[in-house]
């Protein structure tokens, strides 16, 4: 009996040793005595290359600091990060979504950067988008105010692009960037541009092809509706204004036939159609600029068409760069974050690589004036950030489950099988239930 116990004990001790070893977190000294930081991020190939170059420069300017980069595929990034947190194996520096800010702060994952930023001579918060910095502020109750737990990697204003060459070829007057289309005008222009060019009876040039998950917001907001109320605790999709916008969105395919039909509506498809020059309008984010530079046609930006409010609307995406609360080298880690987000040298390289808009206000002014690079109307990106862009609804809540389910269930509306009015009625209670759960979870995590 005792022997058995002894054996079991040995096992347990071994187990604990292994567990302890596996639990070592990032921030190790490399063999040559320099300080090694791990940086986990994601992005397209052009973006990765740009970031690698910037980090190389950082290493040159900071002898004794080495940065180990961990790149993951975009759709797996969040999962990998969660797994790293659960496994107590967090990189020193990493991207995180603004929607996760509260959860990560409440559970002590993120380091409070405020003292480092206040101390630093290089950072002038007045020269960075206030919207961007505020996304990463949290005072323990409300996001948007309080201490800073991350710096915006960039801001991603989601603008509407159009194929200028196609307009000219079709003899359709070019859109006015200062006077957005109304919904009716938008449909009319799209119908003029949806064409069967090779005479096989099916259109092979379309007006547009929006992905509902990323483009519906523009229509809903511009019609004066939203997913959430002011308090961010009530789902408001059962508003008739909301249903009207959703119905309009679905009608673009079913009634007005200006977008590829049900069987062609995959996102990949519409993106490729746009790239091939077979689509008049398509949303453009700053991250697309390097890819779209090589498009076989001229494109430019304009505001999304306006609903009943008469004002265009769209969202601004963002990713924050945060520092692990367990990092061994907080000073160096914060230094790197600042280099990537606020330093002139770092920002210049990233902007030149055409993967983002500048974080720095003065640099943005210069950038807008530069007409040598596409798109011409870069001002639109800046207008979205300054004037009318908003955060995605899922960002406000502890988790985005309630928001995601809206898009999971939406296919029948897009296919014209049920009306938007029926859909919002059926979906609201379901979403409310999940939102209530998220609110409850948030309360629990605060204590």
């Amino acid at each position: 009996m005792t022997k058995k116990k002894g054996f079991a004990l040995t096992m347990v001790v071994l187990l604990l040793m292994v567990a302890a070893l596996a639990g070592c977190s990032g921030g190790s000294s490399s063999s040559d005595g320099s300080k090694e930081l791990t940086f986990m991020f994601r992005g397209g190939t052009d973006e990765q290359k740009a970031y690698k170059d910037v980090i190389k420069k950082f290493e040159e300017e900071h002898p004794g600091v080495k940065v180990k980069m961990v790149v993951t595929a975009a759709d797996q990034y969040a999962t990998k990060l969660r797994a790293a947190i659960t496994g107590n194996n967090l990189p020193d520096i990493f991207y995180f979504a603004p929607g996760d800010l509260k959860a990560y702060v409440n559970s002590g994952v993120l380091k409070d950067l405020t003292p480092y930023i206040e101390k630093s001579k290089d950072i002038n918060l007045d020269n960075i988008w206030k919207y961007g910095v505020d996304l990463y502020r949290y005072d323990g109750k409300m996001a948007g105010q309080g201490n800073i737990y991350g710096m915006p990697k960039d801001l991603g204003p989601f603008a509407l692009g159009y194929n200028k060459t196609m307009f000219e070829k079709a003899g359709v007057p070019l859109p006015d960037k200062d006077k957005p289309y109304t919904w009716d005008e938008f449909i009319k222009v799209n119908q003029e541009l949806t064409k069967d060019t090779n005479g096989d009876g099916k259109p092979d040039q379309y007006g547009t092809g929006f992905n509902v998950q990323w483009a519906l917001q523009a229509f809903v907001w511009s019609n004066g509706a939203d997913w959430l109320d002011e308090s961010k605790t009530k789902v408001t999709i059962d508003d008739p204004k909301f249903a009207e916008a959703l119905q309009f969105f679905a009608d673009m395919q079913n009634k007005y036939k200006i977008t590829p039909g049900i069987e062609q509506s995959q996102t990949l498809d519409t993106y490729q159609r746009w790239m091939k020059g077979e689509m008049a309008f398509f949303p453009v984010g700053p991250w697309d600029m390097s890819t779209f530079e090589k498009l076989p046609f001229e494109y430019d930006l304009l505001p999304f068409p306006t609903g009943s409010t008469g004002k265009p609307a769209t969202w601004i995406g963002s990713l924050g760069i945060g520092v692990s609360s367990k990092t061994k080298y907080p000073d160096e880690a914060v230094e790197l974050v600042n280099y990537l987000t606020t330093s002139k040298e770092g920002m210049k390289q990233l902007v030149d690589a055409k993967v983002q808009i500048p974080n720095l206000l003065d640099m943005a002014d210069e950038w807008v004036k530069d007409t040598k690079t596409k798109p011409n109307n870069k001002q639109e990106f800046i207008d979205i950030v300054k004037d009318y862009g908003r955060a995605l609804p899922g960002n406000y809540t502890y988790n985005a489950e309630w928001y995601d389910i809206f898009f999971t269930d939406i296919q029948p509306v897009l296919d014209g099988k049920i009306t938007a009015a029926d859909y919002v009625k059926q979906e609201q209670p379901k979403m409310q239930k999940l939102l209530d759960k998220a609110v409850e979870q948030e309360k629990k995590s605060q204590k």
Partner: protein
Amino acid sequence: MITKSNLYRKEKIYGYLFILPPILGLLIFTLFPFVYSLYGSFTDWDGLGQMNFIGLDNFKDLFSDELFYKSMYNTLFLMLGIPIGLVLALLLALGLNRKIPGTTTFRVIYYIPVISSLAAVSIMWNWAYNGDYGLVNQFLELFGIKGPNWLMDKDTVKPALILMTVWKGLGYTMLLYLAALQSVSRSYYEAAELDGASGFQMFRNITWPMVKPVTFFLVVTNIIGGSQIFTEMNIMTPTGGPEYSSASIVFYIWDKAFKNLQMGYASAMAMILGIFIFIVTLIQFKMNEKSSFDGD
């Protein structure tokens, strides 16, 4: 006496040493996570912070969770591919067991999907199923059939996934059947032939019973594997498909645990899934015992 006991003890130590690596592996990678997850299922753990014990609340919530039932149903539905795969593989194996030229080539062809990466295969099928330019619909067009957009329609997404999993597993199942068929002694068939048995009679009374252990093994492993299906839908329908109609139970667990900060709830589901697999496997073993071939 003393020396003998010493020798015995030494041997015992060596014995333990030899079994130490697998036992350690079992403890670290199986038992420890299992116990951790079991405990987690009774907490409101969000995967980040503290674990608060909340008793059976997670399990209670599960019973009124529409998506839990839906993903459970999807998982069971996808298992329709198991009998289809078994029948097809057995037929193929019977065909390839004959001495006709070219069988080796066919065996290789059928086995290629098995050794291919599941992720790569999923991406390939993703293209094949595209409603607009996909291979599947182009093929159907030859017969004048207008194919649906397979992965975007809730009625076709599950059959599409079944077709793919059957295709992927066919080579493996076929190979096992082929091995089983080849171990059946020729003498049984010769004896049956002498007795004037027809081809079907020979199959029913000799081949089928002789490959039964393999069928049993395949059914058990396929059901266990089928309950845990994940990669295919994660790549082909990353949001769980239209109206969540292709989300498997493991997909839902992953969704809750890593996307929606509900690790405790996900653990509870994992426990239910574990119990389900255990019971189903137990039933199969019992059934196999009862009907097993008493000959020899």
